[in-house]
């Protein structure tokens, strides 16, 4: 799957959760920069899973700290 395409679709999904309109770059962290709490993470992950018809297990989530890592993980999961 095309990385630019995945990137733009995730960018659209992140918007309603990005309450403070933080500028999102590959190095942006979910816990630190975007201040996602565990409930937000659950809803956001569910939105991505439905968009790409994938599952991102808790084990995989634990390895994802930044926006760029998320895009990479989704590209890999959706490409299978």
């Amino acid at each position, binding site marked *: 799957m095309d990385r630019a395409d995945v990137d733009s679709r995730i960018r659209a999904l992140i918007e309603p959760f990005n309450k403070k309109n933080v500028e999102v770059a590959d190095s942006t962290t979910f816990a630190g920069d975007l201040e996602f709490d*565990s*409930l937000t993470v*659950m809803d956001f992950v*569910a939105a991505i*899973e439905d968009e790409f018809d994938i*599952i991102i297990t*808790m*084990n995989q989530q634990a390895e994802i700290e930044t926006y760029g890592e998320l895009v990479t993980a989704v590209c890999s999961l959706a490409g299978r």
Partner: protein
Amino acid sequence: MSSGVSQPDQPAERSGESPDLFAKFDPIIAQRETLLATGVEDPFSLVMERVLSPTRAVCNGRDTILLGTYNYMGMTFDPDVIAAGQRALADFGSGTTGSRVLNGTYRGHREVEEALRDFYAMDHAMVFSTGYQANLGIISTIAGKGDYIVLDIDSHASIWDGCALGNAEVVPFKHNDIDAMEKRLRRIPEGAGKLVVLEGVYSMLGDIAPLKEMVQVAKAHGAMVLVDEAHSMGFIGENGRGVVEAQGVIDEVDFIIGTFSKSVGTVGGFCVSNHPKFEILRLVCRPYVFTASLPPSVVATAATSIRKLIHAGEKRARLWGNSQRMHGGLRELGFTLGTEEPQSAIVAVIMPDLERGAAMWEALLREGLYVNLARPPATPANMTLLRCSLCAEHSEEEVEAILGMFARAGRAVGII
């Protein structure tokens, strides 16, 4: 032998760059200090000085009605249960000092497992030292590397810890959302083992799961199903076997997890199952093997209590009556509750925030009523709750008295 045992505690002075490992607790220490600075009694340091009955105790010096003990069926002072415990204590001693697989299986452990098989009409029963260990042990052992656990996001800590102890892939779904569960099951790679973990009653809000539909969906996807019925045993379902029985899917589920520390009235946990290979778990389940078994008096009280619960139809009816009256009465007073209708013996009263929740909790304690204060992170959606669990032994007069206390405390704190 340590030569330091008689020395007073001497805080070590740390040197170098390493951080204090306790620094991670600073936010919770600060939150606690802020709360206690308002002058409220510490909700997490209550002492029961005397226990008078399943529904009454002397707490922090006051005669108090207990409405937060999960002692649903009021078995803790049942004369037959007490007598069985006393006999076992005298005949078998105070403890087993051993693992179930070594020297820790006494006659009483076999008898309580037999009582469970009879209660649930199932082939196998395995007793753990606590309910927490039952979930920890079963989940971490049966779901291994490459398997998938699909579970409700509001699952109890013991279920999450069972997932964390094992090596399976963990996939949560939105609370009680059948569609969200189905989607996740559908996306699991072909050929992988699947375990769906659900609860009958969710203890924070007292709501039940749509098990009929969920178990069907799980089975359609080839998953094994484990249901934690800790908060329903003894009174939900015609024979008290839980929400799985009430919704007619008990024969479809693979494992039921339960506890002795609620309706049964003592401590311990268990798993019952019809799986033909179930007994092998006694050798491979580490939280079962590497801990001491329950004391003889505990298994004797549990076995007696479970056998009495088989015939407790009248108590079941009284408990439902109490739950309905409490739920309806609190709604009439204007409180916001966790469920629209009473679904279990738990009635959760939703507080506007932690400060007013703690103030309300203390006002109730001063009135002579004990309820559970539940707060984030244990609660869903970061709510603060006053959790009320009813008992079959609460009298109608006590229930009315409790409603009066809620009315006065609620007005004093400004919640209603």
